């Protein structure tokens, strides 16, 4: 009886919880179809029901933003609930030595109803 109750409670909790995943932890650049441009592919999984948009950014060691392409308009991607999206990141070859982090951040829509919301950001490191 107790086991059933605990399992049911866990099942309820897991249904409520919502998460954000961004992999790989240590991406690597590879050559792209275009000369002077390198690329890597990130995988984003969204199981946050209240979030549908994620901002992708590339940073240097000092957390200055670097220009890149591949992550949609204004670097904001639409990732529906429970969807998994492969995101290509294209960077200039001359910026490879500078780039240190690729990050995804959940974007919260204005006018949300919760008083205190959580914005999640996961950063992978380029070695």
């Amino acid at each position, binding site marked *: 009886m107790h086991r059933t109750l605990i399992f049911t409670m866990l099942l309820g909790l897991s249904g409520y919880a919502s998460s954000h995943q961004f992999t790989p932890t240590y991406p690597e650049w590879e050559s792209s179809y275009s000369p002077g441009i390198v690329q890597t592919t990130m995988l984003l999984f969204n199981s946050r029901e209240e979030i549908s948009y994620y901002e992708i950014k590339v940073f240097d060691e000092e957390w200055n933003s670097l220009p890149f392409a591949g992550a949609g308009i204004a670097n904001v991607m639409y990732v529906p609930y429970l969807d998994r999206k492969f995101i290509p990141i294209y960077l200039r070859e001359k910026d490879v030595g500078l780039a240190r982090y690729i990050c995804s951040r959940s974007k919260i829509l204005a006018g949300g109803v919760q008083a*205190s919301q*959580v914005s999640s950001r996961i950063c992978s490191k380029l070695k």
Partner: protein
Amino acid sequence: MFNKTLLALSAAMIVIPASAENVPISGNVESKCVITTETNGVYGNPTPSKLSTLPADGGVVPIIRFDVVSANYYKAVIATPNDFSASPSLNDVVAWTGTTSVGEVSDALMSAYDTDKVVYNNYSEFDLTIAGSTWFKAESTAVYGYDKSFPSGNYNAVVEAECIAL
């Protein structure tokens, strides 16, 4: 006789591919960090000049879970709010305070995260040195002016939870 043989052969041709079929399941384990919002916070309003997520003040503390598959690959950085993301027009200063602490842990050794954390401004940093799940509580309080009443309306603030590869 010929018909029977033909039927038997046809049946065998249909059956053989099905019986020989293998269904592979593959997977790999890689280091990763998963940020899970367990509980969104709610501000209580115990006095006209105060908004607080503390249960004693009628609020709900936001709880964020960090899952790491491998130890020593990530650090968690949690920032409590220092501004409202949405509020009525405010014409006086808001004094913010916030604390991030370890709530529940999947490994008893993780309780050391609280003593080893680095705190600066409204940020708290935790090195995730043990594989497993850690639940962090991010408490937030806002006090308006000097005993001034918050104007009526909706107030929203954002807790930032970051997982950064080391």
